[in-house]
C-alpha cells in the first residue's frame, strides 16, 4: 500500500494547551462491560464523489479499496448497493438527485431539500432530544469546489430535510471553529483581562436576547405556524452552537477532561500554496480548480486529524466529511502510484474533472487509481480516528466507539448514458462491535444498509416506506451484517 498520508502532522510535539472539555460519561471504565452492547455514541459520515465501478470494488483489497486493508477487522464493505430511487424521483441532473439521497435514503423532497434528516442528525436527535451536551452540535468539513446544487456538497440535512451546515474547507478556520473559541475564564493564577470579561458579558447578553426571541417564536405563544417554527428551530440549533462555545462553563459542559487524549495545539497551518480554499463556483459541470494531488490530500489529511481530535476532546459527536462533492469537479495534477500502476492525473485524466472519464468515456483503467486516491484519503481519516495512542476510557479507539458510514454516489458509468445507480459502494466502520466486518456483494438498497446501521439505536427511521418500499431488498434489516 502506498502511504500517502503522513499522520499526526501536528499532534506530536505541538506544545499545545490543555483545555477543559466535557467528559464522555458513557465511557467510564466501570461501565465498560455494559458499554459493549450500547450503541455508538457518535456518528460520522464520510463521502467521496464519483464512486467506484463495481468491477473494481469487488477486487476488495487488490483494487481501489486497498487503503482500507489495515482496518479490515473494523469495517463492513458493501459493493453492490442500489439507489435507483434517486433517479426515479426529483429534479436536476443526476448528481444533484443523488447528492441528497446519500445518507438520507429516500428521494429528495425537491431540488433544494432532502426527504428528511441525514443519518448523523437523525441519531443526534434520537440520543439528545434536548440538545447535545458538547461544544458543537455537529460539524461538516471537507474538500469540494462546486456549488451547482446544494445537494452536491451538503451532507448535513436537518430534521425537516432542509440543508444544514455547508462543509468548511480551510483547516485553520476549522481549527478556530472547533477549538479557537475555547477559553478558561477564571483559570487559577491567571487574572482575566477586564476588557475580555466585559466583552464576554455583553456577548452573553446578546445571546440571551436573541435566544429569547427565538424561543418566543417557536414557543406556544408564537404567532407562527408549524412550518415556520420548524425553520426557526433549525436556526436556533445553530445559535446554540455559538452559545456552547461562548460559555462552556455556564452551560455545564466542562465536567472533566481527558488530558492525555485532548492535547490541542496552538494552531495549524493550511497545507498547500495553491489550494483555493475559499473558491465558490456555480453550475453543474465545466471548469474546476486543478490542484496538486499531494496538497489536496494534505488538506484533507489535516481535516481528518482535526475531526479525530474534536471527537477525542468531545467537542462534537456528530459530523460529516466530504472528499470531493457529488459529481467530482476537482482537477488534480501530478503522478500518483498504487496497485503497481501509476497515473499522471493531468495527462491521463485531462481536463478539470475526471467526471467524464468515470461516466462517459469508460476509462476505468485510469479512474482506478483516482478511486484509490479518494479511498486512501478516507482511510487516512479513519486511521486518525483509530489511533491506538489515544485509547478511550473503555480501552477502545475513537473509531471503535463511533459509527462511521462511508458512502459515495455511483457505481460507475461506462457508456454515454453513464451514472448507474447500482453496484454502488458503501462501508461502515467502527460501530462498537455491533456489525460483522467483511465484504458484502449481495444486492441491497442503501435504505437497507442505513436502516441496519441504525438498528443498535432502535430508531424507526421511516425510510423506504410507502411508495419507496419497493426499493428495499430486506423487510427489516440486513441480518447478516448484525453481530
Amino acid at each position, binding site marked *: 500500500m502506498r502511504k500517502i498520508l503522513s499522520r499526526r502532522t501536528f499532534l506530536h510535539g505541538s506544545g499545545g494547551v490543555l483545555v477543559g472539555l466535557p467528559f464522555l460519561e458513557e465511557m467510564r471504565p466501570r461501565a465498560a462491560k455494559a458499554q459493549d452492547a450500547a450503541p455508538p455514541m457518535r456518528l460520522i459520515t464520510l463521502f467521496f464523489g464519483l464512486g467506484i465501478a463495481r468491477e473494481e470494488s469487488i477486487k476488495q483489497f487488490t483494487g481501489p479499496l486497498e487503503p482500507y486493508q489495515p482496518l479490515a477487522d473494523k469495517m463492513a464493505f458493501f459493493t453492490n448497493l442500489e439507489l435507483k430511487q434517486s433517479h426515479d424521483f426529483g429534479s436536476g*441532473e443526476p448528481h444533484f438527485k443523488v447528492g441528497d439521497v446519500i445518507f438520507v435514503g429516500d428521494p429528495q423532497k425537491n431540488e433544494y431539500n432532502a426527504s428528511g434528516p441525514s443519518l448523523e442528525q437523525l441519531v443526534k436527535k434520537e440520543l439528545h432530544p434536548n440538545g447535545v451536551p458538547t461544544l458543537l452540535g455537529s460539524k461538516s468539513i471537507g474538500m469540494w469546489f462546486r456549488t451547482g446544487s446544494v445537494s452536491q456538497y451538503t451532507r448535513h440535512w436537518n430534521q425537516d430535510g432542509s440543508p444544514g451546515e455547508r462543509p468548511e474547507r480551510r483547516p485553520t478556520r476549522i481549527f478556530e471553529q472547533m477549538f479557537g473559541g475555547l477559553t478558561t475564564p477564571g483559570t487559577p493564577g491567571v487574572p482575566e483581562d477586564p476588557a475580555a470579561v466585559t466583552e464576554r458579558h455583553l456577548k452573553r447578553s446578546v445571546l440571551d436576547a*436573541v435566544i429569547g426571541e427565538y424561543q418566543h417564536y417557536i414557543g406556544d405563544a*408564537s404567532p407562527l405556524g408549524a412550518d415556520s417554527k420548524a425553520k426557526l428551530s433549525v436556526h436556533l440549533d445553530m445559535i446554540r452552537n455559538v452559545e456552547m462555545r461562548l460559555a462552556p462553563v455556564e452551560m455545564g459542559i466542562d465536567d472533566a477532561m481527558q488530558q492525555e487524549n485532548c492535547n490541542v495545539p496552538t494552531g495549524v497551518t493550511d497545507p498547500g500554496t495553491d489550494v483555493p480554499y475559499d473558491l465558490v463556483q456555480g453550475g453543474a459541470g465545466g471548469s474546476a480548480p486543478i490542484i496538486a494531488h499531494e496538497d489536496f490530500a494534505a488538506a484533507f489529511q489535516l481535516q481528518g486529524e482535526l475531526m479525530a481530535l474534536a471527537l477525542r476532546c468531545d467537542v462534537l459527536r456528530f459530523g460529516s466529511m466530504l472528499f470531493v462533492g457529488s459529481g467530482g469537479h476537482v482537477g488534480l495534477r501530478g503522478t500518483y502510484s498504487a496497485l503497481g500502476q501509476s497515473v499522471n492525473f493531468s495527462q491521463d485524466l485531462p481536463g478539470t474533472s475526471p467526471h467524464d472519464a468515470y461516466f462517459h468515456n469508460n476509462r476505468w483503467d485510469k479512474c482506478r487509481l483516482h478511486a484509490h486516491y479518494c479511498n486512501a484519503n478516507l482511510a487516512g481519516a479513519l486511521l486518525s480516528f483509530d489511533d491506538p495512542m489515544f485509547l478511550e476510557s473503555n480501552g477502545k479507539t475513537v473509531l471503535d466507539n463511533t459509527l462511521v458510514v462511508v458512502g459515495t454516489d455511483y457505481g460507475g458509468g461506462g457508456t454515454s448514458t453513464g451514472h448507474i445507480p447500482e453496484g454502488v459502494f458503501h462501508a461502515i466502520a467502527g460501530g462498537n462491535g455491533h456489525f460483522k466486518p467483511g465484504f458484502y456483494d449481495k444486492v441491497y438498497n442503501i435504505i437497507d444498509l442505513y436502516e441496519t446501521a441504525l438498528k443498535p439505536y432502535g430508531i424507526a427511521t421511516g425510510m423506504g416506506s410507502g*411508495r419507496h418500499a419497493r426499493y428495499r431488498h430486506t423487510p427489516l434489516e440486513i441480518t447478516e451484517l448484525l453481530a
Partner: protein
Amino acid sequence: MLAVYDTALGEQLAFDEAARWTLVALLQAPPFLFRMENEIAGVPGQPRELDGYELAARLSSFLWVSVPDDALLAAAADQSLLVPAIRDQQIQRMLADPKAQRFTEVFATDFSRARFAAFEGATDADRAALSESVIATFQDHFWTQHGSVADLFLTTRFVVNPIVAQLLGLPAPGAGLQVVDVAGLPQRVGLMSHPGVIAGMGDRAIGSFVNRGKYLMERLLCRHPAAVPDDVAAQIESFNADTTGLNEHEKSAIRSSRPQCWGCHTQFEPLAFGFSRFDGAGRYVGETDADGKPLPLDGWVPTEEAVEPPYTDVASYMQILATNPVVQTCMTEHFIAFASSRESSELAREDAEHVGQLYLANGSTLSAMVSAVAESPLFRTILPPSAAP
C-alpha cells in the same frame, strides 16, 4: 433588546457603545432575519386579510426585494394601503422606482435557471453569460419595450453578449451586451428559445424528451409529473437498454405505443418535441440528427383542454404559449408564488385564473400583472392553520 442596552450601561460603557451592542442583538433577532407574519391570528382554516404593515412588507419584498420605505410605511400605518385604489397608487409608485428592476431580475433568474447549464464543455463563464443575457432580455422586454407577459413568448429581440451570440450563430457583436433581432434565425421565437432558457434545462447534449418535457410541464403548465408506478419503474431499465442508440423521437414513439408509459408521458413529452433541434447549450443543430434521421418539430401543448392545441414549429408553438389561457394562468401562478413566497403547488388554480383574467382585462402589461397579483386573495390574505382535531 433593552436588556442588552442595560447590560452595556452596567458595564460602564458609553451610550454609543451601548447602542452598538444593542444593534448587534437587533441584527441577529428573528424579526430582522425573517419576514414573519401572524400565521395563527383569525379563524382557523379561514383566510385572514393582512394588516397594513404585513401588506407593506409583502409588497416591498415582492417588488423591491427590500423593506418598505417611508411612504409605504405611512400607508400601512393609517391602513390606507388596504384600500384598493390607494394600494394600486403605491404599486405604480414602486414600479416607477429603479429598485423594481430587482424583482424582474430575480424572477428571470429563477425562471430561466441558466446558471445550471450543464452542456458538454460548459464553463462558469458560459453559465454567467447565459444568465446575464436572459436577464438582460427580460429587463429590456419589460422596462424598455414595455412588453406584455404574453409577448415574452413572441419577442425576437434578444440582448446578447459574445458567448450567447456565438451560441445563436451570430457574428460576435463586440464586448458587452447588444440588442439583436433573431427573427431571421431558424426556430428562434420568444424567450423560451433563448439559449439561456434551453441550456437551463440542464441537458448535456440533445435533451431527453422526458427530462425536458417534465421541466417544461412545470414551467409552462404548473403541473408536476406523477410518481412512476411500481410496474412501470420495473421496466425503465430494460427500456433504456433496449433503446440504446435510438434518438429521442424514436424512443418517444416506442413509449407512445405503450399505454402504461404514454398515459403519463403524453402529459409532458409533447412539450419537448418543439425543442428537439436545440442541443444542451441551446444551439440550433439542424433538421436532422448526427445519423441523418429527421428531427420533426410538430407536437402539441397538453393543456388538458377538450382540444389540446397542436403546433408545427417553434413559431406556432410560441404563439400558443402566448395566447393559451392555461399557460397564461400558469405564468400568473409563477408571479403569485414569487410575490407571496409560497410554492406554486400551494396555490389554488381558480385564484390564479381570476388574477389572470384581471391581468388580461387591464392590458396585459407587467404593471397589470403586478396589480392583479396584489389583488389576489392569495397575496392579500393568510390562512391560519385549521384547529387540531
